[in-house]
Each structure stands twice: as structure tokens, then as C-alpha cells.
């Protein structure tokens, strides 16, 4: 029997690929924007691309913020992808100060536009980047349980979440010598700055792991 996954549809981005990736990994996907579907989900995925404020606004307009918080309080698995991960934070500084869902305490800040040697960096950070496991962090009981250190995933972002608690920092990547948070975990709430649905077989494996959590 396939795992059931509820994918939040709030009018943002390429949802088709997210859906297809989860289906390919063996899920029965419910694509929905209904508050009741979100609260009663078994496993929830929150995608997001573009500007943080636009994404939060999209959720707010559809009355989805309360249902998401209610769902998160149940302790059932939640995966935020890209801006979906950023929205787990307390606040974001993109285009002003904006409140997030506050599920993983931290702040979303701009990716540095200068490398550690003072040379200009291209922004957005676009491309494949290697995942690094922070010291004292285990990838067991996370979507990265089958991921090897150094495995590459696809990112495209100009902002990144900086978790307050180091224990919430699940994976890092590097850009211009800077350490960027690539994934977070707090209990069964996960976030990935990268796009697992665009990271080839490595991404599909992570999705499969999330489905079995």
C-alpha cells in the first residue's frame, strides 16, 4: 500500500514536478489547498518558490497558516521545500521584515554576495551543491538517512534559513567558502533548501525516506 502524502497547493511554483517526484517514489499524492485536508493529513509537504512574503501571503490569503500550525502540533511528518523550508523560520529579512510560521526558530537572511576572499558571488546561488553533515548530527531518522556525505542536490536561492539551535541544523552546503544551511530538522518537521524533486535519483531517495518516516 502506498504512503499517503498531502501536498499544499497555494498557487506557487512548479507543483507538477513535486507531485510527480512523490508519485515516482511511491506516494499517493493529494494536491490540495483546503484547510481540512491539511489538518487531517498523514504526511504533509509544503513547497515554495519566489519571494518569502509572497509565499506567506499566499498561505494567509487561503487561510492555511492556522491549519499548518495545527498540523505541525500533531507531531506528524512535515517537509518544507525551498521557500517552504524558509517559511518554517521565525522571520525573514527578504524585501523587509516578514513573519514565518515559527516552527524552526531562526531567521532567513540573504546569501552572501561576496566570497570569503572578497570576490563577488553570483546571486541567486544556482546549481548542484554537496551536502555536509554537521558535527554531532545524525542523519538517521531523517530524509537523509540513505544519503552519503558529499552527495549533491540542486539549489536555487538568494536567502537561507539560519536556525538558532544548532541541533536543528540537519545539513549544510558551501557557497563561496560560506557555510549555508541546506536542511533543518526539529522532531518530525524537516526542511530542505534544495529541491529534492529536481535532484535526480539522490532527491528521489530522500523523498522515499520521507515517505517511510
Amino acid at each position, binding site marked *: 500500500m502506498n504512503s499517503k502524502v498531502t501536498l499544499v497547493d497555494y498557487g506557487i*511554483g*512548479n*507543483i*507538477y*514536478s513535486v507531485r*510527480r*517526484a512523490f508519485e*515516482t517514489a511511491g506516494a499517493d499524492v493529494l494536491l490540495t489547498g483546503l484547510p481540512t485536508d491539511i489538518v487531517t493529513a498523514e504526511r504533509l509537504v509544503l513547497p515554495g*518558490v*519566489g*519571494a518569502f512574503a509572497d509565499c506567506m501571503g499566499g498561505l494567509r490569503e487561503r487561510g492555511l497558516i492556522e491549519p499548518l500550525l495545527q498540523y505541525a502540533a500533531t507531531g506528524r511528518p512535515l517537509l518544507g521545500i525551498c521557500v517552504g523550508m524558509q517559511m518554517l523560520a521565525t522571520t525573514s529579512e527578504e524585501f523587509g521584515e516578514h513573519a514565518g510560521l515559527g516552527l524552526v526558530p531562526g531567521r532567513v537572511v540573504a546569501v552572501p*554576495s561576496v*566570497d*570569503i*576572499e572578497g570576490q*563577488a558571488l*553570483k*546571486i*541567486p546561488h*544556482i*546549481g*548542484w*551543491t*554537496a551536502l555536509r553533515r554537521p558535527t554531532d548530527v545524525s542523519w538517521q531518522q531523517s530524509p537523509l538517512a540513505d544519503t552519503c556525505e*558529499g552527495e*549533491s542536490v*540542486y539549489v*536555487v*536561492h*538568494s536567502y537561507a534559513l539560519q536556525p538558532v539551535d544548532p541541533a536543528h541544523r540537519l545539513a549544510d552546503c*558551501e*557557497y*563561496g*567558502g560560506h557555510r549555508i544551511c541546506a536542511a533543518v530538522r526539529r522532531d518530525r518537521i524537516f526542511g530542505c533548501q534544495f*529541491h529534492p*524533486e*529536481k*535532484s*535526480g*535519483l539522490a*532527491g*528521489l531517495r530522500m523523498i522515499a525516506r520521507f515517505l517511510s518516516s
Partner: protein
Amino acid sequence: MNKSIRLIARLDIKGPNLIKGVHLEGLRVMGDPQEFARRYYEQGADELLYVDVVASLYGRSKLTEIVRHAAHDVFVPLTVAGGIRSVDDVTDLLSAGADKVAINTAAIRRPELISEIARRFGAQCMVLSIEAKRRKDGRWEAYTDCGREMSGLDAVEWARRGVALGAGEVLVTSIDKEGTRKGFDVELTREISDAVNVPVIASGGYGHIDHLLDVVERGKADAVAIADSLHYKRTTLDQVRAEAKAHGVVMRTV
């Protein structure tokens, strides 16, 4: 601490077919785009770039079905170019599985379109596509309509302007070099890469690994698009990746 370079497979499409041409003239039908897309995905393409090469002439992008078909089974980023003229066109393509759109003619005709798309979907979705040819004065002219019409714009200046308007990436195609397999226009790529703070994709002219090394090292390209050499099976993406890495270029390990 070198940046990771992307290898992009470019698929030029006419109607339902993958085609190939030289200097954007003389098209040859290569076959079913889906077969090529799957092959390149399996070879480790970092991204796929679909270009509808006749869309501007007939005024409408028909790539949606091809893209949806690819996105069904191919899980790397897809960029679509050719005949995209409105925010609605972009909505249609994103709902079919595209991640980015690359716009040339429509952006030159109405530059505000760049801002509209970036504002609505994010700068990362809005790739400015520039097709350029060397002018007699040594600068480059930006062309519209698949290399047919001169725009009157200096390509490098236009890149600067397009990024200021909100483009999150620039796709640079040399009309002079495209299909020749004699290398990219390294100077053009370098000038544009120096002029803008967003990633630059070099397209047009790959024939040998030295061309990639040159356009990355001297041209400051962040990504390289290859068509001809792949479609005619002169090389594969795994080979290109292995050769590039052997020469010290940072790329992901597939």
C-alpha cells in the same frame, strides 16, 4: 572553493521534433525529444534547456506538452525558451513542469515583461536569453526572432539592463559559433559575466572539452549548454563531466 559548473543539455524543438541547425538556419530533424531528454537525464544532465526555434515566427509557444512529458519522469530543472510572450505563457509552462523560462524577443520588445515575470514568479524563474552576433565595430548585436532580426541593442548593455529589470540568470548564445563546434564566444560570455551579478549560461559552439575549459576559465561562465555534440553522439554528458573534472573544473559527482 571554486564554484560548481553546470552541464546543461540543450534540445532545440520544431513542432513535435528535436532538430539541429547551424547558425540557426538549415534545420535537420533528429527525432523524438522525449527519447533525447531521457538519455541526457540518464547521462547526468544537471539541467535541460528546451528551445522552441520557430515559436517567435508563428507567435505561440507549443512546448507545453513536450515539457509536461519530460517533467513526468525527468527530475532535474527544466528551462523553456522560444516564443514566450506573457505572464500567462509562463503560468502554463510552470504548471506543465518547467522551472525557468528564458525570454529573448518578447523581452526586447517590451522590457517590462522581465519585471512582471520576476515579480510574479521570482527572479530565479526569469532567464534573460540573449542571442548575439559580432558587429563590425567589435561589439555584439542582440538579435530577436531566432537570429533573424537585429535589435539595435548592444548585447552586453542589454544584459545589464535585463538583470536590473529582474532577470535572475542570463543565457548567452553566440549566433556566430552555434552549431560550428569550434568553441563558444568566450569574450562575449566574459563581458556579460563581468557586467552582471547573476549566473551566466554559455551556449553555442561546444565541440571539444577545451572549449568548455576556456569558456569557464576565461569566459567566467557558470554553466555550459551543449546540443550538437550530444545529439550527434560525438560525446556524452558523462564523458564531458569526467574530462572537465580531470582538468580541475568543479562539477557535481553523479
